[in-house]
């Protein structure tokens, strides 16, 4: 698309094309990362399971009184020190009992066997929640980070809207047109459009509901009086009354919600709250029963049932997919991968087109853009794979392992971006793509080997489903990365005679 002539007004398609390209590129650099970690978060519980290979087999169900007493003791020990503590109850996805608390923005937990009440010595890990937190805060704080991600999601909505207008006439034909053998940028455009059009409802839904989940941060409602949550107990700096026996509370809550529909327990200075599980229906209702903290008597059942509240719960549930059975989770996962492909191909297309029309072929902004695109498109998945590797390579008892695991993502991501920028400045950005895709394929394809080698002593008696699913998915994604590196190597070889190994020239061919 060329710069419009002074006298002529660009057409609607050109105006939307400009908006689509620029907003898409700027927001897309981070939206790629948000999609990668969001896609992983679909299976956050399973990833945590994989990252704790000592996890024993356990039957889900209401935990025994003995187990609850031991968990209550752990809660009491943590109270007064930590901001937020809750007791996660067993579920089909995670059959163990966890006392979870926030420690400097990182979730930590003590785990108990739901039947025997024995403490299960699991290694400390950032777990799947790490990717989930990154997905919606970018680790920039729960206020600024969330708002920043919301702004990016609004950018995505504008990009999707302009994309629909650009491709409106050929929306359906584009669906069946993939021409990988055509000259570039046709294959990139085809992949971009197929991923976007095929999953268009998902893309709109995920961006829109993503903003709405935390809409109170984006559009704060200052007119609402903040509820009294029981005085200064939330910051944990005063004496808390001792807890009542939890087993009778759960029995009572099970009569209301159902035995397999209990989610977690929260604690405040005045109440103990049993919250309904999120996986019982699409809407995340957070219906809960408050019990008196001293006597254990039921105070009230709190349930928001107005149509607006139900709509809000439904939209949140639709985004988070906590209700979804396994096949639907895979659908979310595949849709997330399509989102990644859409943004990755979009970034590449932007660079190809810009290279073609740029007056100065090797300008600094162009090289920075090429480096950043590589650093996010391949750098972020590589950094995520690095976290999984670090999880298994670090000694299980290392006290600082959570910090190291978490830092791995950022250190690796930074290093890979520096590498990408270095390659871009050296006019060898294609070499950078080949190197990073090769490394990604290596890390992912060898993940099952790492898994078996470091899980061997606990493997007997474990349910293998989660481990096999994570390993196989890694191998499939690794093979895709391998294919990418092979194709790029072939293309680079074919265009070796072209002078000036620029990004466009290499990818265009």
């Amino acid at each position, binding site marked *: 698309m060329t*710069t419009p002539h002074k006298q002529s007004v660009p057409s609607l398609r050109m*105006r*939307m094309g400009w908006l689509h390209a620029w907003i898409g590129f700027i927001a897309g650099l981070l939206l790629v990362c948000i999609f990668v970690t969001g896609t992983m978060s679909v299976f956050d519980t399973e990833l945590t399971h994989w990252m704790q290979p000592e996890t024993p087999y356990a039957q889900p169900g209401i935990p025994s009184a003995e187990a609850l007493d031991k968990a209550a003791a752990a809660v009491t020990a943590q109270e007064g020190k930590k901001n937020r503590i809750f007791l996660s109850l067993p579920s089909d996805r995670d059959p163990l009992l966890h006392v979870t608390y926030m420690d400097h923005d990182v979730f930590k937990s003590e785990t108990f066997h739901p039947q025997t009440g024995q403490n299960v010595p699991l290694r400390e890990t950032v777990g799947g929640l790490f990717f989930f937190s990154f997905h919606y805060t970018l680790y920039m704080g729960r206020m600024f980070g969330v708002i920043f991600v919301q702004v990016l999601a609004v950018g995505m909505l504008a990009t999707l809207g*302009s994309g629909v207008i650009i491709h409106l006439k050929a929306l359906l034909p584009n669906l069946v047109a993939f021409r990988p053998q055509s000259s570039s940028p046709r294959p990139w455009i085809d992949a971009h459009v197929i991923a976007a059009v095929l999953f268009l409802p998902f893309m709109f839904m995920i961006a829109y509901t993503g903003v*709405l989940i935390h*809409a109170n941060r984006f559009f704060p*409602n200052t007119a609402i009086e903040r509820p009294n949550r029981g005085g200064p107990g939330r910051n944990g700096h005063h004496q808390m009354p001792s807890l009542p026996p939890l087993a009778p509370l759960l029995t009572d809550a099970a009569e209301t919600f159902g035995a397999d529909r209990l989610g977690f327990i929260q604690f405040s200075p005045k109440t103990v709250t049993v919250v309904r599980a999120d996986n019982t229906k699409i809407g995340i209702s957070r219906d809960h029963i408050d019990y008196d903290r001293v006597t254990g008597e039921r105070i009230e059942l709190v349930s928001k049932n*107005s149509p607006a509240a139900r709509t809000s719960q439904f939209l949140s549930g639709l985004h988070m997919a906590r209700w979804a059975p396994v096949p639907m989770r895979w659908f979310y996962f595949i849709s997330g991968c399509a989102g990644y492909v859409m943004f990755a191909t979009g970034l590449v297309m932007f660079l190809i087109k810009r290279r073609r029309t740029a007056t100065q072929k090797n300008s600094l902004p162009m090289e920075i853009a090429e480096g950043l695109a590589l650093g996010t498109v391949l750098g972020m998945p590589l950094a995520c794979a690095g976290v999984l590797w670090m999880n298994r390579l670090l000694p299980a008892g290392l006290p600082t392992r959570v910090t190291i695991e978490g830092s791995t993502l950022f250190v690796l991501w930074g290093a890979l971006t520096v590498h990408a920028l270095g390659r871009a400045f050296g006019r060898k950005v294609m070499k950078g793509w080949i190197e990073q895709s090769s490394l990604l394929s290596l890390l992912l394809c060898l993940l099952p080997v790492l898994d078996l080698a470091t899980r061997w002593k606990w493997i007997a008696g474990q349910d293998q489903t989660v481990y096999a699913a994570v390993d196989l998915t890694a191998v499939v994604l690794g093979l895709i990365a391998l294919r990418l590196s092979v194709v790029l190597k072939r293309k680079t070889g074919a265009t070796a005679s072209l002078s000036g190994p620029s990004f466009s020239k290499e990818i265009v061919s």
Partner: protein
Amino acid sequence: MAFSSYYLPRLLIAALLAYPAGLVVATFLPHLLHMPRPDSFFVAQVGAVIVVPTTVLTIFGTRSLWGGLLAAVAVIAATMLIALPLAAFGPQ
């Protein structure tokens, strides 16, 4: 696809107007809806989140900048009108 001067004013105006446009909806719509404050505010937020990207698209969609601004105002008004039927939820 250069970062041309033709588009820059539109981008700046869109960036300046889009969020306030949503804020207008989020602020005034609850007063028009006869339902509990948290519910009416949520309905307003539902509309406001749509208004922000729609305003950007509208400003870029029109041939002249003034047309874009007028259309953006129309978008805000239309959103409020569309959201009004949600008042059928009624007070609790």
